[in-house]
């Protein structure tokens, strides 16, 4: 199938899915999350919308890098201290334990694990993503502080891999969130992961790992893609 045909097909699919989504839109929000009017303690009536809390309505903004040598110095520090979020999204996470243990020991390169998205700046998408996980990945990614980097593990994040025809897993990760480094293989060896981290360091030091800004810039496009496959969109558009 040529590129042109594919583009045509994709545009057709988008059209169709838009109608689908609009038909089946309302039903997924749970009753307690629906927008409604409640009576306040003083008797007044106020509107509440539980899934939009008070800072989630804001769009992400581009955060410009600093100038020249300052940014270079900070980039060096960022590259030498990469904190990875401990969220194993797929079967590739079986290769994370060897990385933190004697055989491969990624700590010596300044790569460490952190348990919460607030404190980590690298996210290993370890393999295929089902739509259910993608929803959580998006929320997690948006909560991570900028600058943030995504390493996509395995061929299933590149083009679907052996799950290309599965109804549950996505095919291309870069349609939904921006990816810095792809690590191919099924499953990639720990050495490949280490090489991926080295590549990421190179990118950061060269100032090319600015995908968080790219996400902010193309926010509408990414959101449209995400909403196309997440049929039960019952969360804020952006949360941080």
């Amino acid at each position, binding site marked *: 199938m040529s590129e042109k045909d594919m583009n045509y097909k994709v545009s057709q699919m988008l059209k169709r899915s838009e109608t689908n989504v609009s038909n089946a839109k309302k039903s997924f929000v749970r009753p307690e999350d629906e927008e409604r009017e409640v009576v306040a303690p003083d008797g007044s009536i106020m509107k509440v919308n539980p899934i939009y809390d008070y*800072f989630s309505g804001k769009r992400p903004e581009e*955060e410009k890098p600093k100038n020249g040598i300052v940014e270079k110095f*900070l980039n060096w*520090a*960022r590259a*030498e*201290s990469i*904190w990875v979020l*401990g969220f194993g999204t797929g079967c590739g996470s079986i290769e994370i334990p060897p990385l933190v*243990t*004697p055989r491969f*020991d990624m*700590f*010596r390169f*300044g790569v*460490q694990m952190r*348990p*919460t998205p*607030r*404190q980590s*700046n690298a996210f290993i998408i370890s393999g295929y993503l089902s739509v259910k996980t993608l929803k959580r990945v998006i929320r997690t990614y948006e909560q991570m*502080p*900028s*600058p943030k980097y995504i390493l996509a593990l395995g061929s299933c994040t590149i083009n679907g891999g052996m799950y290309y025809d599965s109804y549950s897993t996505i095919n291309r990760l870069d349609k939904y969130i921006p990816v810095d480094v792809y690590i191919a293989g099924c499953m990639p060896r720990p050495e490949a992961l280490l090489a991926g981290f080295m590549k990421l360091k190179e990118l950061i030091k060269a100032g090319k790992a600015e995908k968080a800004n790219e996400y902010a810039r193309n926010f509408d496009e990414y959101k449209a893609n995400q909403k196309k496959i997440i049929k039960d969109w019952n969360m804020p558009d952006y949360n*941080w």
Partner: protein
Amino acid sequence: MTVYVKFGYTLLGLLIVLNWGFLMGATFRKIGARVAGRYGIPFYQPWLNLLKNISTRTTITHGVMYYIGPVFRLTGGVGLFLFMPMVFTGDPAGLWTNYSFEGDLILILYFQVFGMLGMALGAGQGGHPYSAMGIARGLAQHAAVELPLTLAFLSIAIQYDTFSVYKIVEAQQGGMMNWVLFTNPFAAVTIILAMLGAMGHSPFNLVKAPNEILIGPATEFEGTYLGFMQSAGSILHVMEAVLFMNLVFGGATSWIELIVKTFLIYFWSVFVGMVFPRFKIEQSVTWFFKVPLLLGFLAIIIYSF
């Protein structure tokens, strides 16, 4: 003029303590890695982490208290430092004794809790259920640690008839046999046991356990706040070690001695933490209320008569 000189020396001392705290943290992570058979982090990793944390672009807010939490914690560490004599030179107004005065032991006890309370307020406003849970656990355990610790401090204060840390150090000079470790063994053993809880290493680190809950109070903090908190943590660790060194192990007469002694004191808690899993909160509270509390009472009773 001497006021400014003294101030300068105090600032210098704080800088030394901060860097020593970073280095000590890195060294012990490296020791842990070597026990496991790993190479471990480079020794300069904590400075890089600090730089990286400061260079984070996003800043989030959950309200005023959320900002003040890390500041409180840092204040706790710095306050502990300000009133603690670091190096004993024989001169009560010496340059490295900071602002130690009569009765600073009580102030130091207060500052130990201060950081924890600040964290409680900050993390509470963070709003994350794990933060609240971590804080509840942290305060419960802190109370359990403080009780035997305070009893031992009181016993030492009764023994030397003073609440000044400087005078306690002074009284211990002149040979190893003058240390509290030998003159008041009950209080010393109480402190050595309660120290494990105060240092926050396994088995008493459920507060920030990543498995049992997320990482407790720090769950919502990021970027600069986290950098602040980790710096404050480093200072607190060194200062706790200095406190125990001053009270039990005869103080230090030079920076070299201070570094060696704090290293060994800190090593004790790491040594235990390496091979023991962590207690649940009720189990650790029970543990502190058994042997350490009993020994603390004994120490008080013996020196009251």
